[in-house]
Each structure stands twice: as C-alpha cells, then as structure tokens.
C-alpha cells in the first residue's frame, strides 16, 4: 500500500464519519458545514479518480454555492432542530 492509497483511505473514512456526525447532530449549522466538507473531500477523490472536470465543478458548486444556499435558508428558518 502506497502513501497515496493510505491517504485516500483516510479521506474516505473521514468522509463517512463526517456524514454520520452531520446526520446525528441537532445543530443545523454544523450539519451544513459538515455537508460542505463532504463535498470538498468528494472533489479530492474525483481528482484521484482522474476526473478533473468534475472535481472543479464539485469544488465550486458543492463546497461554495450549495453550502451558501443551505446557510441562507438556515438563517431564515432557525438553526436548531427540535426533537
């Protein structure tokens, strides 16, 4: 196992852990930030999978615009999820 492979596995594990935290947390703001971070990690994995076009699109849209849209919506609807 090379260093790059090891880093890719670490990134994938981090991604899944982030997704579980985003699913279980009660604070919508942190859930939104974690989903933006997941998009960023996915775009890194796209670069490893030899898809630079898609990586650019995912980094620009998933980590910036989509996160901004979720944050604007949270600002207008309240940031704590009730039980």
């Amino acid at each position, binding site marked *: 196992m090379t260093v790059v492979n090891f880093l890719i596995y670490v990134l994938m594990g981090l991604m899944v852990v982030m997704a579980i935290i985003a699913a279980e947390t009660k604070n919508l703001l942190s859930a939104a930030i974690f989903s933006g971070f997941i998009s960023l990690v996915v775009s890194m994995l796209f670069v490893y999978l030899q898809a630079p*076009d898609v990586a650019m699109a995912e980094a620009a849209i998933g980590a910036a615009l989509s996160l*901004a849209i979720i944050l604007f919506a949270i600002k207008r609807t309240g940031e704590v999820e009730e039980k």
Partner: protein
Amino acid sequence: MRLKHILAWVFVILFVGVVAYSLQTEVPFGHDLTKLAKYYVDNTAKETGIPNFVTAIVVSYRGFDTLGEVTVLLLATLGVIGILPWEKHEKVKKAHPVLLWGIRIVFPIILLVGVYIVIHGHLTPGGGFQAGAVIASAFMLYMVSLSTHLDLEAFAFTESIAGTGFALIGVAGIFAGGAFLYNFLPKGNLFDLFSGGIIPIVYILIGLKVSSELTEVVSHMMKGGAEQ
C-alpha cells in the same frame, strides 16, 4: 422511537452491503472500458477536433441533452424567483472594513479565473458549468460584503441572450449541415485556442447562462421574499 432509528441503520447497512457486493460482481472497480467509451476515446479527437473529451461529449455528442439541462436550470431559477420575489427597499448594512477591502481585492481575481476557465474549456479541465459556478460565487461574495443591490435586470438580459444564442446556433446547424447543433465552422488544428468550430462558442454561452442564473438564485435566496 429508538426502534425506528435502529431499523433505519439496519436498512442502511444492508443496502450498502448488498449493492456494493452486486456492483463489485457486475462491474468490478477499475474494469475495462465499455464499447461506447472505447468509441469515444478512439474517435473524439478526429471527429470534433478538441482534446478535452468531456467537453466534446457535453457540448457536441450530447449537445441536445445539454440544451434540456440548461432549460431545467432556467425553470428552477424561475421557481426560486417566483417563490421568493425580490424586495426593493431594505436597509443596507455596512460590512466590516477587512471584509470590504478583502473582497475588493479578491473579486476581480476570481472573475479572471472564471473567464480563463471558460475560454480554455475545450483544451484544459473546466468549461462553462465550472466557470459559471466560479463567477456566481464571486458575485455572491460581492453581495455578501458590500450589501449592495446588483442590477438583476442585467443578469436576466445576459441569461436570455445566452440561451437564445445556444438555440439559434443549434438551428443554424440544421440549415448548414442537416442536423441540430451540427458543427458547421472549420475545426482548426488540435490544441489551438481557436479550434473545434462551434464548441467553444457554445460553451462560452453556457458559461454566461449558468453564471447569471446561479447569481440570481443566490441573490433571491439571500434577500428575496417578504419577511413578517
């Protein structure tokens, strides 16, 4: 309540296991190219005259699908504008000076990167969709920091000109070569900036359309709709 969550987790784990196993047996990771992919890899450079195959598929081979896709984007934008209409009179609050001057320095650089990405869309990674997102995020930063009202009429005008131009180029292909979006301009040399016929023109139009639409979506999400 706990039982529902446990059942949902069991469902998720079963879903992941079964689908991963069947995918690995049917299309193993890193398998050989399919017939269609082999055709594209072998013939794209000859047939379209551009080195970026993803751009060739998006704009040339599947150009009609892309026209439908930007139509979906237009409809979603119209939906957002209809649900959250723009409100003219609202207080403009001053941003922090650090943010203000930072954005003033960064904004033209982001814009320049976006323009570079869309102009070289047929030679290097990138293109209309990526550049549209980059330019829209630049305008989003501008709106967040300066809290000024951008002239949304200008974005609507750019969007309609770009969409109409895309459709008109497609119709011109019918008269010039007998097919919608036929590549009727000379192809030029491979790897040249001015090459590929209509592909760079169409991708620049897509970039203008996507950037103006996403800017409108973000500005309406940010300020549109009457608050109670």
